[in-house]
């Protein structure tokens, strides 16, 4: 093992890749050659072969409510990003740091107020 050179060790990687590719090719190729193919027998083409028959299309629209997430994420994420480092050091910074943070949280609270009045907090 000690005689393997720097580039030689890449040979091992290459061997692993080749072995992996070979494994997949052999497995799928064998299945293709050996296995019988009767796709139209017994509901093989439905989404779930056993269980309840699906209703409607596979593609459907769903409301992600991105705006709600975006809005609330910005408010609370920005808050925590500044609050944690602040909480670590505010004792050494004195009252000025407390006042600054109070103003900052106050402005973010206006954001939350806005979200509440605009009905963002109620889930439809």
């Amino acid at each position, binding site marked *: 093992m000690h005689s393997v050179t720097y580039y030689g060790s890449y040979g091992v990687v290459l061997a692993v890749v080749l072995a992996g590719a070979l494994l997949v090719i052999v497995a799928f190729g064998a299945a293709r050659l050996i296995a019988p193919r009767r796709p139209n027998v017994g509901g093989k083409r439905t989404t779930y072969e056993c269980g309840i028959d699906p209703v409607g299309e596979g593609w459907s629209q769903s409301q992600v409510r991105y705006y709600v997430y975006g809005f609330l994420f910005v408010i609370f994420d920005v808050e925590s990003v500044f609050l944690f480092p602040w909480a670590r050091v505010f004792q050494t910074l004195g009252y000025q740091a407390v006042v600054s943070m109070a103003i900052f949280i106050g*402005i973010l609270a*206006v954001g939350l*107020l*806005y979200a509440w*009045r*605009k009905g963002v907090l109620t889930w439809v």
Partner: protein
Amino acid sequence: MTIDYHAILPVLILSSTIVIVLVTDLFLPPRHKSASMWVALVGVLATLVAVLSLIGKGDRPDSFGGSYQVDAFTIVFQTFFMSAAAVVLLISYRYFREGGFYQGEYYFLLLTSFLGCLLMPASRDLLMLFLSLELVSAPGFLMAAFRKSDVKGNEGGLKFFLIGVLSTAVMLYGMSLIYGLTGHLQLAAVSDGLQQLSGAKETLANAAILFVVVGFAFKVSAVPFQFWAPDTYEGSPVPVAAFLGVASAAAGFAGLLQLMFVAFVHEYTFWVPLFVALSLVTMTLGNLVALQQRQVVRLLAYSGIAQTGYILLPFALVSADPSINHSAFQAAVTYILIYGIMNLGAFAVTTAISGQRPLLRIEDFAGLAKTAPLLATAMTVFMVSLAGVPPTGGFWAKLLIFQAGIQRGGVGVLLAVAMVINSVISVGYYFLIPRAMIFEDAEDQRPFRSPILVTAVVAVAMTALLIIFVVPNAIYRLGEVTSLGFGG
């Protein structure tokens, strides 16, 4: 860190107003949403008073470690921006009340942009300049797309956003290189730091200056970075176009003036040729394309591009001689102030027309001399002034730049002559609107209702332009005192 609370009082008042406007809007019943405008207006006027209270109290360079400084330059520009804010608010009132827009949010965004404008002339380091410029632009992206159901509105907003972000990235890259090379953010320190560079570092510094200039060129819509402007202006609500064309552009110039005349002034041999080219191409192309326009907002957009070319001209006059730099600086400041008045006026009249004739073609102005004589007279004055013809303030603005060009000699003379030729070309399209108003009859014979607030604003702007023509010293003085501490 010391904070001079009187110096930052205007900023504090405007910031509080922004919060108050947003909160008030939340509790207003839907029918009375337009009341937000009056709240905003009171805040803006209070800010204006706070700015004016700083006059004659000396320079205040100490807040936030010198990042926020109050001197004559700051006060002149802050007064200008707050007056512009009052005008934009007043012309927005009817447009937004009748257009079915989100009014509270609009006034909130507009004031936030103006907060950026307010910070811009006081910013004396790269970081503050960048933050102020972004504070101007970011709400601007939203306001430009405020006509949500209109395809053109969306297109204009998106273009403005993409170009704005791109220009910011380019500018920020330049600023980061400058910080890396000099180790300073303060403009004065950057200026000293850049002088000491040599060899490859000097080349890199020049590249960085180029990046910053390109970033600002996007913001002030100089050719070849102008293509977003006409589409954005056309797609935006007309009062927002007024904001973008006047306040946003002036904020860009307020930043550019500080960078070029303070931070990068010793590197002028590198960047003066850039500005010569920018100025020449911008004014010529702007004017030639404006000749083809038949829609008034697009026409004003291209006229704005041409005017940007004139304002860029004094930058191209910078040399080793402080007295020439001073005249160039003075000419640029004076031009921006007068241009602000006449362009705001022109957009105000356009806003007034847009209520009944939303297409805003030149034909839509026909017959206005009979139906709305005050608006028609004022629009004529604004157009004559934009063309730089006496008896209006625009004449002195152009004359001052012309004089600075002649004083500089060499390339300055060439630029001055180019400006005169361009002014003559510009008469070709500026006079189309007065001609339609006076000599043509309207297709639409219904009586025209002049909105009272807009008419009042327009009358004030028109009077100001005529007064400036009679007593030019009033506004020259403003240009003279704003020396930013070089040579003056």
